Structures are given as structure tokens and as C-alpha cells.
């Protein structure tokens, strides 16, 4: 696209932030938005006014992200808030999530769509149990880039030793969790050191500022495997003369690529056909790749419905009724062992029974717990389920879309838990 002679393509980076109540997470985001000139005048007026009303001495940038009345009153973040900003090189979506233990589920939520996780650490306190928890959750959700921001450096007198000590401990954690890409930055969110501008208080640090890092870091967009996956959402059957025989399968490509003429297998029927066309509004494509929302038409009239998956013959997913997965429990009501839930894997739904709880994870020391297998809100556990209908899926590490599922409680219809298939 070219306008006024200048052309540029921006990519999108989704990241999540984790840190406990006082680590200064909201302040960091506020600072990022403020220094990158993404806070508008009327929002700023609002923050100045609210800061005054709450009797604060300085302007409190965290007020920008704490949206709900209760959050502002109690000075905490109780739910995932999404923020948007862009720089000339990239567009960012931030999932700002609360860090206290009772909100592990919110962190899991924020992490589920993120490419990168930012973990805040209070320089005075160093690496705590929660740092372990946050890093573990990020890797559990398959986030491959972690940025550790060692915050409140101003309160340590900008001490290099302090930073290096924390970095050393973190490096051990990174190794233990098998994290591929980790970064460490000493910052002061309150005063802006190394957030957008390099800090003059820490001349000993010569690495990237936080903003520069997230602007330039290379993210593997399609980390999902190259096996072609097309979960069917709805069937498109026009009620018009012109398209009398049209039968399209709408969906979003969840992995790999599809081309016109490709031979495909439809699951669960295992019927074979060829791709006849790949359509969008009055447009036809030669191919569609992961992420594209399109409609496919096939050469043969076969019975296909919502929840079916179109794949390629040589790249079949796993299948079965007996599935082992890692779950994060979201609901106040504990897991009912032997209980029935609705389970939803991409667009496919069926019921399931919890067959067994294999172990619970102590996310503060990463040890498996087998003596207490009661699963309550915010617990992470390895479980096995038995589904009423045979499912077709991949492991979560291989494909985040076909490898993830949610549990819905019959009656209340609440999403009570989520799962990542092993």
C-alpha cells in the first residue's frame, strides 16, 4: 500500500504483562503509553484529575489501565484489560493481567493469545515464588519470548550488583523451564529509566530499552506446525439462483496452507475430496494460510458440518476418546472427579467425564503433588478425560488451536476450566 509516496508494513505483537500488586505493572504500561505519546490529552486530563481526587502527590499513570470502579477504589487490577498502542514500526496489543495468586486464571487468559510475556520483578525483593509462577504459566501457554523487567531500580540506588544478582537467579529459572528466548532489563517505570529512553542513571547497562526491544524482537508468527488444519465453523448455502449449487465451508485456517486442487481428508468421516475454490467476498484466492478466514468449496458433495475438520491425507492429527491434558481450573466450584462437563475443542463440542487426576502442580516450586488431588480454582493439574465422541486434535505444543480446549459446566454454562493437550 502506498500513500503520499511512503510505504510501510507494520506487524502486530500481542504481549501480556505479569507481576504482583506492587511491582508497578500498571505504571510500566502507563509509562510506555505516556512516553510513546499514546496517551491522548483528554485521557491525561482525566488521570491528572483522578490522581488529585485520590490525594496522590504525583500523577499516577496506573490509573490509565485500572478501569473498573472497584479497581480504582482498591488500587488493584481484577481482570484482564486490553490496551492498544503503536509506534512507527509495530502495533501492540497488551493483555494486562493481575498478579496475585487468586487471579492465576486471569494470567492464563492473558497469556493464551500472547506472543511474548513481560514479567516484572521488584528489584528490592528479587526473585520470588510468584516470579516462578508467572514464568511457568507463560511457558505452559507456549509463550516463547520472555522479558524480565527488573523494576524500581531507583530504590536500589540504580545498583548494578543488585541487577546482576537477580539476573543470575533468573537465568537458572530460564534453564529449568527450557525457555528459548529470555531478556533482562533494569528499569524504573515510575521515572522512565530504560522504558522508552535509555537511562542516564544506569550507564552500566548498554542493552535495549524496553520499547526498543519489543519493537525489534523477531516473533515467529506461525509457531503452529505446518500441518494443514481447517476447523469448519458454518456451512454457507446461498438462497439465490446465481449460487444455487454453492456449498461453502467457512472457517479460519488453523495451521499450514491449502491450495486449489489440494487433496483433502474430512474428519471424522475420512472422506476424501479436492479443493475447488477458496473464497471471500466476491474474491477468489489460489491459497489460504494459517490465520486466514475464508470459505472452501470442494469438488465432491460430501456431508460436512460444524465441528468437522478439513486436513490433508498425509498429515492426520491424533484422534481418540481418552485424552490426557494439563488443565487450569477457573471456577470457584472444585473439579468433580468422575463429573460430566461439556468440552469444546476448536469448533467441536461433546461431553466428557473426568477419568482421573494424575497430579497437581505446585507452581511455586514446580513440583508434582500426588498426595492431595483436589482441584480448586487457580490450580494447575494433569488430568485424563473420556469424551463421548472421538476427537481429532494435536498436542498443544504442536498447534495451539487444535490442541486447546475449554470445559463448560452443564446447567450454569460457565467456562469452568481450560486444557492444553499433551
Amino acid at each position: 500500500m502506498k500513500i503520499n509516496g511512503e510505504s510501510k508494513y507494520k506487524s502486530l505483537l500481542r504481549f501480556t504483562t505479569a507481576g504482583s500488586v506492587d511491582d508497578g505493572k500498571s505504571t510500566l504500561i502507563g509509562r510506555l503509553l505516556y512516553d510513546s505519546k499514546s496517551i491522548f490529552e483528554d485521557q491525561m486530563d482525566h488521570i491528572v484529575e483522578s490522581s488529585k481526587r485520590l490525594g496522590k502527590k504525583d500523577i499516577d499513570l496506573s490509573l490509565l489501565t485500572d478501569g473498573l470502579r472497584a479497581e480504582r477504589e482498591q488500587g488493584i487490577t481484577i481482570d484482564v484489560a486490553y490496551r492498544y498502542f503503536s509506534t512507527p514500526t509495530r502495533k501492540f496489543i497488551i493483555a494486562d493481567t493481575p498478579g496475585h495468586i487468586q487471579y492465576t486464571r486471569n494470567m492464563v487468559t492473558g497469556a493464551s493469545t500472547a506472543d511474548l510475556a513481560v514479567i516484572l520483578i521488584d528489584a528490592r525483593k528479587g526473585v520470588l515464588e510468584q516470579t516462578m509462577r508467572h514464568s511457568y504459566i507463560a511457558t505452559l501457554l507456549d509463550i516463547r519470548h520472555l522479558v524480565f523487567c527488573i523494576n524500581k531500580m531507583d530504590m536500589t540506588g540504580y545498583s548494578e550488583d543488585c541487577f546482576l544478582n537477580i539476573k543470575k537467579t533468573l537465568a537458572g529459572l530460564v534453564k529449568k523451564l527450557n525457555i528459548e528466548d529470555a531478556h533482562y532489563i533494569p528499569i524504573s517505570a515510575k521515572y522512565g529509566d530504560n522504558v522508552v529512553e535509555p537511562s542516564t542513571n544506569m550507564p552500566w547497562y548498554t542493552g535495549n530499552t524496553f520499547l526498543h526491544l519489543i519493537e525489534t524482537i523477531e516473533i515467529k508468527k506461525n509457531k503452529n506446525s505446518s500441518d494443514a488444519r481447517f476447523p469448519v465453523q458454518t456451512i454457507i448455502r446461498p438462497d439465490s439462483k446465481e449460487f444455487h449449487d454453492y456449498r461453502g465451508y467457512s472457517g479460519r485456517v488453523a495451521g499450514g496452507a491449502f491450495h486449489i486442487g489440494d487433496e483433502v481428508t474430512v474428519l471424522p468421516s475420512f472422506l476424501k475430496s479436492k479443493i475447488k475454490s477458496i473464497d471471500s467476498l466476491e474474491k477468489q484466492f489460489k491459497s489460504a494460510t494459517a490465520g486466514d478466514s475464508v470459505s472452501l468449496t470442494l469438488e465432491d458433495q460430501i456431508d460436512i458440518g460444524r465441528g468437522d475438520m478439513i486436513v490433508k491425507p498425509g498429515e492426520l492429527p491424533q484422534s481418540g476418546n481418552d485424552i490426557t491434558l494439563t488443565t487450569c481450573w477457573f471456577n470457584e466450584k472444585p473439579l468433580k472427579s468422575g463429573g460430566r462437563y461439556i468440552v469444546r475443542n476448536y469448533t467441536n463440542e461433546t461431553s466428557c467425564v473426568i477419568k482421573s487426576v494424575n497430579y497437581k502442580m505446585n507452581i511455586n516450586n514446580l513440583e508434582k503433588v500426588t498426595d492431595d488431588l483436589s482441584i480448586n480454582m487457580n490450580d494447575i493439574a494433569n488430568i485424563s478425560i473420556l469424551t463421548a465422541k472421538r476427537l481429532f486434535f494435536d498436542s498443544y505444543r504442536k498447534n495451539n488451536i487444535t490442541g486447546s480446549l475449554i470445559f463448560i459446566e452443564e446447567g450454569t454454562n460457565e467456562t469452568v476450566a481450560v486444557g492444553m493437550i499433551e
Partner: protein
Amino acid sequence: MIINDEHIKELEDEAIYVMREVAAQFEKKVILFSGGKDSIVLVHLAKKAFWPAKMPFSLMHIDTGHNFEETLKFRDDLAAELGVELIVRLVQDSIDQGKVIEETGINAIRNKAQSVTLLDAIEELKIDVAVGGGRRDEEKARAKERFFSHRNEFGQWDPKNQRPELWNIFNGHKNFGEHFRVFPISNWTELDVWQYIMLEKIKLPELYYTHRRKIFQRNGVYLAWAPFMLLKPSEKVFETDVRCRTIGDITCTGVTLSKADSLEEIVTEIAATRVTERGGRYDDKRSEAAMEDRKKEGYF
């Protein structure tokens, strides 16, 4: 001037995916249509999501009666062109039936009243999903909103007890009498919307482009003047070149002084602006949690 194609395409793919999830999971479906650019973009996305079939939605307008004339014609023409049902419900009817008491005085607006009319229509027509053009960048209560937002049988939103929403799995299960509000363009910003309109060449009401209009200033915001509006003695009506940045109820929609008469000029203007689009929305300035409170009661 920057056009970020790659990013816009990803947002479009996401919104179309959401539209199709709505089609698959609900029965009686409406798109909340105000005649504003966000709802026009929604209609375009719905067209794209279901082509060559007709979109499985009706358009529903909750009409405060305080409209810019041009938007009503635009609304009627669009529904006719698409061949979809247009449902119009009047806030005035709810007022006449005594279901809401209209605010009075200079600062009176019909925003709160709109929720009553909307919830009545949802109940009467057994609507189980209303798709809206709300975006998380618009306002801080909206920043916490889900794509699929559950409403109880009273149509209320409980921000502290929202359903978790992970990956792209949307749980639309509900009990009888409950409904959902769905926001396919949650992740779009104002600039994204304008860039998309430009890339897709989507037709908009002329109000979005520069035109001569009688306006006046109130609390730092320029408002369009209409004959039924009450003015304070200090407020003077004058005529100048303006365009609308948002289009809603005329009594609380601010206008921008602008000479932009093409989409390219508008995108450039929006990219450089230092005030949010709701900065001109008088309805949000009423209290710290104005939007949160309205949403809990059933507002969009």
C-alpha cells in the same frame, strides 16, 4: 502516512471468525446499527463472512429521536441494498409508555433511556445475540469487555464475573431469557477502523466528511446545533467547516473542526490527533465510571 496492511488483515480475519461463531451459536441475531462508522464496518464484515449467502442478521436501530437526518436515510438504503430486515425501536415510545423518565434541563441526554428500549426489544423479539461495534480502545470499562459478553435475564453485565475467554474459543451457552452481546471489532482502534474503511472503500454517510454546519461550544466540546436543543445564554451558535468523528445521538456527539474531504485526509487527521474520539462524547464525561454504570444496566 502509514498503512499497516498486515495488522489490519489480522484484525479482519479475527472479526470474520467471530461473526461466524455468532452465526453458528445463536438463533435470533441482530447487529446493533446506529448509522455510525463502527456499525457500518460491522455490516461490511458480516457481508464478507457469509458471501455469497445473505448475512444471517437483522439490523436493529435503537433510535433516540435525536438524529442527524442523513444517517436515517443511509440506514434505510443500506438495509434495502442488503435485503435484510431493519428493526427500529424508538426511545420516545418507552418514554410515552412511562417506562423511563426523561432527563430534563440543558444537559439532558437519552443515553440511559436507550438501554431500556434496547432491553425491551431484546425481550419482545426473543433476540439471543446483539452484535455491537464496541471497541476496547474507546473507554476504560470497555477495555475489560469480552468478545462474547454474557447478559443475565435482566440484561445486566457483571464485570467482576465475566466468563473467561481464551484463545479463540467462545462459549455462547446460555439459559432461556439470557442473551449475549458480541463485539467482533474489540481489538480495533479508531485508526484501524478508518484504515479499513479506506482499504475496503466502504461507503459512509457524508457527515463524516467536511461540511458547513451550525455548531456551538459546551464544556470544551463542539456540538452540532439542532432546533430542539436548549442553550445557555453564553453559548453562541456559529457556522463553520466541521466533520463528525463519531455519529450518535446529536445532543451528545461532538464535531471536529476539519476540512478533510477524503478518506486519505481523514486517516492522516486521525493519526495525528491528540484527543480520543470519545473525548468529544459528552455522555462519557458525566462521571468517573459513567460507561461502566451504563453498561451494567444494559447499555451497548
